[in-house]
């Protein structure tokens, strides 16, 4: 990752009244990666994204898109950006094509043939000439992406891109995002409150809670660090009390879960067996980000 970052956020703050909404966020994004931006509703995801795309003025800090400051060189910075903030809200009384024409007219550097390219890219087909009011949410999402891609951006920001889509649509969207990053070498930033989504499509993830970023790391590293062991044993109570003497134990649905510690795991098993507990099953488990999140934020809830 020696390339120059597609997006660079430095110590971004937003204060409304006396309340700090965003408390100094920094991270860098690089071309070709899908970056997850994860946090519960109200953590500041959308505010941060709106500061990045220039809809909200930061109280302090800078946002550089392709090295250009959004505050001071708005026009240049926006040329490298495509985004959907929240829902893909387009003009419902215009056709999809007219919507694209409308936005293309706002940037003289977009050639006419680019319209056909993006329609091709999102596979809209003939529906592009129907009124947007008649579109399904999935169609609108595609048109939203088409308009975001119009200016041939280096950075694509999608706020909750799978919100409201059916499972097939979600899957399609995921594949499309990975395609854009891998084949088109775009840098895609995806925000979500759905951890499973981020887990499935992102390379790296930033976890935000109460206006601060708690952690930025690759998804694999985060997961590996949090590997666990699931025990199935008889009698369960005895096993639990024995394990509790040596490590943290959580109990769920007839299982016991402990941390995975390569050095200790054999000893713990031996201890149980010698004490007359019948160990029926022992397996390692990659945790869901849910657990991770609970651990990192100290119990803040998330769907």
């Amino acid at each position, binding site marked *: 990752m020696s390339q120059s970052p597609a997006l660079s956020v430095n110590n971004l703050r937003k204060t409304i009244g006396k309340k700090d909404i965003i408390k100094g966020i920094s991270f860098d994004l690089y071309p070709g990666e899908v970056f997850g931006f994860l946090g519960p509703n109200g953590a500041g995801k959308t505010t941060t994204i709106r500061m990045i795309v220039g*809809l*909200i003025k930061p109280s302090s800090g800078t946002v550089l898109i392709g090295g250009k400051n959004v505050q001071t060189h708005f026009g240049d*910075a926006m040329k490298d950006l495509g985004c959907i903030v*929240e829902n893909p809200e*387009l003009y*419902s*009384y215009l056709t999809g094509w007219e919507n694209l024409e*409308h936005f293309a007219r*706002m*940037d003289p550097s977009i050639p006419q043939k680019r319209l056909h390219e993006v329609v091709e890219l999102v596979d809209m087909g003939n529906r592009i000439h129907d009124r947007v009011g008649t579109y399904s949410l999935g169609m609108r999402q595609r048109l939203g992406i088409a308009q975001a891609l119009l200016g041939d951006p280096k950075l694509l920001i999608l706020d909750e891109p799978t919100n409201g889509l059916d499972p097939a649509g979600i899957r399609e969207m995921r594949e499309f995002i990975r395609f854009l990053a891998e084949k088109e070498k775009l840098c895609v930033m995806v925000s979500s409150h759905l951890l499973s989504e981020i887990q499935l499509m992102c390379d790296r993830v930033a976890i935000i809670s109460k206006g601060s970023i708690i952690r930025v790391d690759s998804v694999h590293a985060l997961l590996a660090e949090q590997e666990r062991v699931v025990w199935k044993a008889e009698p369960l109570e005895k096993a639990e009390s024995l394990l509790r003497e040596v490590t943290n134990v959580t109990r769920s649905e007839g299982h016991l879960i402990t941390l995975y510690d390569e050095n200790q795991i054999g000893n713990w098993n031996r201890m149980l067996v010698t004490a007359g507990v019948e160990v029926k099953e022992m397996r390692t488990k990659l945790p869901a980000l849910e657990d991770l999140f609970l651990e990192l934020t100290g119990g803040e809830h998330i769907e």
Partner: protein
Amino acid sequence: MNKLVHNELLKLFRKKRLFVIILIIAALVPLFTYAQYQEVKTTREKLGNVDWRTQLQQEIVDTQNRLSSSRMQDDWRKYLKIRLAQQQYYLDHNINPQAPGAPTFMRVFVENSIDLLLPLLVMVVAADLVSSEASGGTIKLLLTRPVKRWRILLSKYLALILSVSFIVTASAVLSYAISGVVFGYGGWGMPLLTGFSTSGEELVTNTVHLIPQWQYILMEFGLVWFVCLVVGTLTFMLSVLLRSTAAVMGIMLAALIAGAILSNMVSSWESAKYLFMVNLSLTDYISGMATPIEGMSLGFSLIVLLVWAIGGLVVSFAVFTKKDVY
């Protein structure tokens, strides 16, 4: 900038706003034409005489009779006296102020719709120019383009100016074309008096002069255009400030109707003359009607309206370029 204005006009056009407004005017004009026709007819029947001079003389006598009644408020009396002097002037100079014909209907129509009807129609266009983008969420797409915010707002404002011009033209053309079926299309050259001004109770006639009706109408439509622009600008400002189109319409509607009511009862509340909605009836200055508040003149009203409009524009641009979009 051309392309941005094109965008805004396209949206207005495809929202069918202009079309609806044309329909409204086209529906109302026959109504007014019929009313006007009935009025002419009944006056003729009542008098049993088709001569307008007799009719005007009758009006003068009626006015004089009303003036002689003792229970009358001072401002009303003053108004009647001015009206009387003016009617007498028309009569003495053999000028028929009610000469039938489509141009005359246009004139009456525009004089009566300057303070409410046309501003309302303009409001229909201006009210959601910005607020619909905010409430529909499309503003987020609009403001994340490589175009500065002030340019986007300016393009919207230019589109508004063009739509206002279009509405005024549409009302002129429609009122002429439709009423002409009944009243005939002639009468453009009829001389009309203008330049009346009032000073206290006196109708000052030393600046009165004659102009042909076509010029008179052009002047009145110029004033209507100005009024519509001012109302449009203020609606535009509200549209920037508020997310809800309904709220914008509600506030503007209340202001306009308040203006219509206030004009009839503010004669003793002098500072009300600085409110924009009391100053909308600019055509009254041309035709020499009494002003709602003493001390108001065409120049005064024009300046008041101009100040309001500039204020509205400053607020619009200041807020729009700075505000955080949620």
